[in-house]
């Protein structure tokens, strides 16, 4: 009977804790639907798409490879030299000739 009383205590305690735990889980889901359970994991970032649907989701900086074009350029790198070699029209290729009298919307050559 002593062992049985001990086991009754254990069962009742586990059952009550389980019910209270699920009750708190339901309350959390209803009161704070966007609260992350594990905020340090990349899946549960603090700003979720459901909070601000107009903003695009930013890529994870820890997993994505950065685009080299988007990186800041080296300020000490030499500047690119303009191509000053003469072309067929006698004008350097870097300077594009603009037709002076060409109609603006003459697409079809009419």
């Amino acid at each position: 009977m002593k062992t049985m009383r001990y086991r009754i205590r254990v069962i009742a305690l586990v059952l009550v804790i389980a019910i209270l735990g699920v009750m708190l889980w339901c309350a959390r889901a209803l009161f704070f639907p966007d609260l992350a359970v594990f905020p340090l994991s990349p899946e549960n970032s603090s700003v979720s798409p459901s909070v601000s649907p107009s903003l695009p989701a930013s890529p994870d900086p820890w997993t994505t490879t950065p685009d080299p074009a988007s990186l800041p350029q080296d300020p000490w790198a030499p500047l690119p030299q303009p191509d000053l070699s003469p072309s067929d029209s006698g004008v350097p290729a870097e300077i594009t000739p603009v037709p002076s009298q060409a109609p603006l919307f003459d697409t079809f050559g009419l």
Partner: protein
Amino acid sequence: MRKHVSFRFRVLALLLLFFAGSFALSASRSGSASLWLLTAAVPGVILFLLLLPSGLFPLDRPSLAAGLTLCGLSILAPVSFGPEEALSQALRCAAALFFLFAGAVLLRIYRPSLPGSVLLSALALGLLSLPLWLPGIPLSPGDGASAILLLGVVSFLSLRLRLPALLCALCGLFLFLLRSDPVSGGIWTLAFILLFWASSGSSLWTGISLCSAGGLFIFWILLTPLPDSAGASVFSRLSAMSVVLPESVPESILPEDSLFLLLGEQYGLLFLLSAVLLAVLLLIRGASLALQSRKQFYASAALGVLLLLGIRALAFLLNLADLLPLPAGSFPFLSLSPETLCTDMFFLGILSGISARNEADLSEDVRLSMLAR
């Protein structure tokens, strides 16, 4: 002592005022005579049962207060659907009160014996197999049969007859599975295994019962005929066997068992949490009665009631929190099903009977100590 009594009376007065005020507010809005009747009847019945003299009929007041409050909430919840719904739920609760007294009387007059255990188990198994023998019968008692089967199994266990108890429990599980009610079967099996572990004290027997129940479940899943098993996924196979619902979880909460959600919709989340706390208080009271009992039969019966009510509440809450993809029935005492209400009241009656037995044991101790002096 005076502080204790005044606290109890304050809680009782608060409870009565709450129910009277809630029904009166709804009645004044709708002008329904049924709601005015409930304004007087619900607090009146609660007051009558809680102040019933113990000499006339001993009832366990703490568990009764929790159970009756939940019943009152089940009458209050469908008021928004119409006064007639609330009135019919009140009539269901009033009819279920008969089983409160039946459970208390049964526990007071019953002594564990082999013929009694066999009779109770046979009655429960017969009730469970009723829809199998008579398919057209509208009555298919599942919860009530599990309550009677619990008493039979507990009686076997108190007589140290483990094998008959195990066989009765497995027959009950088998019949639940044949009725395509795996959730009730699962709740019954889990409650029985924990009860068996606490009562028998033998890990070997508990392991045997666990393996037998698990094997029966697997055997049933493998043998259940499927409508279209070719290329079906595991989920669709399980849903075809009604183990898992094919749709999302909220679909599993049927309208007739959604009093809990109706209550939360009308009175808010904090009110709903208070209802869950009431059920927890009822479970704690059941555990306290089991710990105070001197005979194994009463302790096991209180533990069985605690387990069946607690696991049902836990399964319902897990279903509500999207953590259990199973149709988990209804919350204890918050059901529109008359059978479930009667079973819950029967459980309350069993707790009252055990409380009366504990009181009788204590008074006998006092009398013996007076004689020794």
